């Protein structure tokens, strides 16, 4: 099956290259998904990229907008897509037809790195590996609704769902958040058990009857209380809406599609630095150690360094990632970790520290399995690394009306970076109450961690949420150090200040 219409199979010489590169990759211990390569021209590649890698995606104007942006910037020579690979089994990878052969080698090596990462990193374990087909199904279903209800009605609803797309719980595929629902019958009346004890003679002492009785009374009272909805605040706002919002069938289906796709893409956002770093690490090793012809060295170096170049004030995930992977490998090769190393206070000794453990390869394969960006950076970004890489934190200075370097202090930089990676750098927002003020309104809570929301966007998003919930919705957050309740009733947005 090819995903894009037309014949995009690899021409013979690229097929030979592919065999070679895959052989090298497997030789290094990479274990990628079976990968289907397709060769596309620039325009087709822009199209596939605009669809997030899925040529069969559902119709929506924002893909058109993205396509226009990509093709314009390609036209002006500002950017060029070399490659695109999607997490699927088999993985699909798209090559730009106009790449030089050395680029195609580089890109293939890079792609096998990604495909290995997709297959083995734990965050991807629950993603749908037949997403190519799922996306096509989504598109068919959405088109059917569009044919029945009109393009605009469906589109408006999709727009609203997309505004809420980031309100998911990325960890939910791994844990069971709620007990299975079953109506508590009479025999399910909660019984106060007190503390556990094996010693019969101590029972009265550990659980005095009076305390037990008080506990029983409290439990009965709690059982008599009307249940809160949700019982505990929930992060998967989309799921809550699916279950509780008064949606029509087709609306439910569309919301479900948006939610599925959000969960599918989440791990890629969670592992941007690791994933790109991993692919870069492997293409550079495969190319420099195996695949490169002497005549190609200059072009390779040019394009490789282009991918790793720094833009002022931006973090290049390729660069940060590959440097971290190399640093980890080096540290575990030399044994520069652990109690002994950290306790050492002779600079000279530290500099020459080399236990010749040779654990580097083993370690990086282990790390690629068990981490996402947050834990990766938290665990492996060291003071030495921070200094060597020249990392800094920056912020906006209202006095000078410009962005300024704020700090080069390790703790500050690392904290800022971790904050940026936590929850994809998005605010953490939960459903608190589905029957707010006993009026069937919806209350969300923003767990404020020091950074305010962008308020105009928040209001516009509430508008979208209101359209789904059909009753007024509110968001409790903090603005400039004080509590605030943003509310939208479908006609207008209001803001109520609350006590700090």
């Amino acid at each position: 099956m090819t995903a894009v219409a037309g014949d995009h199979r690899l021409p013979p010489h690229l097929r030979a290259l592919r065999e070679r590169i895959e052989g090298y990759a497997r030789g290094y211990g990479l274990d990628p998904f079976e990968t289907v390569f397709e060769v596309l021209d620039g325009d087709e590649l822009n199209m596939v990229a605009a669809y997030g890698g899925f040529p069969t995606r559902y119709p929506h104007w924002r893909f058109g907008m993205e396509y226009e942006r990509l093709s314009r910037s390609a036209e002006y020579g500002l950017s060029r897509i070399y490659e695109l690979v999607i997490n699927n089994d088999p993985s699909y990878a798209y090559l730009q037809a106009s790449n030089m052969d050395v680029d195609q080698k580089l890109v293939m090596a890079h792609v096998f790195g990604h495909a290995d990462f997709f297959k083995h990193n734990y965050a991807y374990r629950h993603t749908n590996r037949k997403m190519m087909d799922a996306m096509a199904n989504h598109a068919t279903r959405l088109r059917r609704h569009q044919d029945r209800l009109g393009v605009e009605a469906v589109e408006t609803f999709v727009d609203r769902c997309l505004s809420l797309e980031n309100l998911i719980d990325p960890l939910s595929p791994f844990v069971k958040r709620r007990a299975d629902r079953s109506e508590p019958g009479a025999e399910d009346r909660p019984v106060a058990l007190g503390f556990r004890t094996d010693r019969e003679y101590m029972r009265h002492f550990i659980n005095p009857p009076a305390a037990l009785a008080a506990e029983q009374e409290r439990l009965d009272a709690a059982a008599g209380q009307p249940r809160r909805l949700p019982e505990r605040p929930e992060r998967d706002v989309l799921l809550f809406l699916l279950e509780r919002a008064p949606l029509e069938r087709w609306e439910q289906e569309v919301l479900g599609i948006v939610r599925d796709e959000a969960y599918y893409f989440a791990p890629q956002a969670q592992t941007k630095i690791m994933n790109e770093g991993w692919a870069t690490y492997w293409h550079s090793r495969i190319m420099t150690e195996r695949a490169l012809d002497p005549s190609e060295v200059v072009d390779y170096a040019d394009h490789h360094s282009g991918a790793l170049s720094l833009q002022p004030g931006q973090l290049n995930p390729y660069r940060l990632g590959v440097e971290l992977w190399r640093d980890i490998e080096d540290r575990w090769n030399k044994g520069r970790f652990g109690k002994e190393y950290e306790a050492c206070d002779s600079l000279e000794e530290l500099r020459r520290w080399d236990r010749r453990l040779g654990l580097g390869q083993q370690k990086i394969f282990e790390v690629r399995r068990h981490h996402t960006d947050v834990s990766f950076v938290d665990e492996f970004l060291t003071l030495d690394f921070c200094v060597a890489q020249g990392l800094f934190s920056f912020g906006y200075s209202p006095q000078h009306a410009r962005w300024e370097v704020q700090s080069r202090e390790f703790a500050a930089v690392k904290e800022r970076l971790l904050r940026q990676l936590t929850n994809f750098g998005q605010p953490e927002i939960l459903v608190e109450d589905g029957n707010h003020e006993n009026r069937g309104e919806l209350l969300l809570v923003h767990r404020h961690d020091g950074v305010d929301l962008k308020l105009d966007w928040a209001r516009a998003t509430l508008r979208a949420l209101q359209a789904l919930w059909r009753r007024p919705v509110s968001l409790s957050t903090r603005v400039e150090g004080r509590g605030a309740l943003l509310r939208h009733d479908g006609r207008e947005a209001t803001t109520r200040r609350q006590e700090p």
Partner: protein
Amino acid sequence: MPLQITRDQARFREIVRGRIQADLDRYIQRGELIGKQAGRLVSIPIPSVELPRFRFGEREQGGVGQGPGAPGDPVGPGDPAGGAGSGEGEHLLEVEVTLDELADILGEGLALPRIRPRAADRIVTARPRYTGVSPSGPESLRHVRRTYKQALRRQIASGTYDPLRPVVVPVREDRRYLTWKELPRPETTAAVVYMMDVSGSMGDQQKELVRLESFWIDTWLRRHYRGLAVRYVVHDAAAREVERDVFFRTRESGGTRISSAYELAAGIVARDFPRAAWNVYAFHFSDGDNEGAEDDRRSLDLLRDRLLPALNLFCYGQVASPSGSGEFLRTLRQGLGPRDDVALSEIAGRDAIRDSIRTFLGTGR
């Protein structure tokens, strides 16, 4: 291969168009588009096309970078988080729209009739049109793809093609060249003469109105004619022809003799834009304060006898100014009577530009 994306892109353009249409009045009144024109494209800031979501304010959030710089140094030349100009509270997306699209939006928004070019059928030029290929021709017209196709065909036929080493070398007989035919094509060309009163009573505000209105008039006319020649005439007591930039900047202090401008314009039209070959438009903007009855009469005579016969349309826009009497509009109305090829309007302020454009261009001439 028809790309699926073209439909989504068309839908996106449709949305952009709708947004511009909805805000057309604001765009007409504000000059923001004029400065953003580059060739045939205008970059238009559109509010809230992006989908909103809960997110942090960029300025509070900050970020992490890599590279040189001490604390307190500015980060790079650009803006790291993007969108420095658009302050918080607004999210604008710059969308490029062609002038033709903009003209269509204007036309739809104001319900303007299409212009029926007057001299269309009379002016005919021959244009070469490439219609086929032949085995001979000049090297500059060699059709590379057809040439190689031919070579490939020959090699396959003669059994010298090797799919594993797909080298195709055309020989002389394989070469193919484009051939053309001369096709007659009606040509529509138009010229515009803008005239503006720059006497002391016309202030910057008045000129800004003229600038805005002329932008939209140009855009509309360009939509209908291939190639638009534009000439500018300023006048106070005497008239002279100037460049576009000068036109909007000149300020004189003398009196006003409108006849001087009409005379100069009539000369330009007679010399450069003969009626047989051109659709000619003349627009005159003034605060309507002419020197006296004597010159009013002279102006009317010039218009009737020399200008109007050579024009598709003559438009007079009277810009309100605190010191102008606005007498000339009445003079024209009475002196010319109702005619198809004359459009008169009063422009009291920015709000009136829209109606004035409609008066001028609603004639469909």
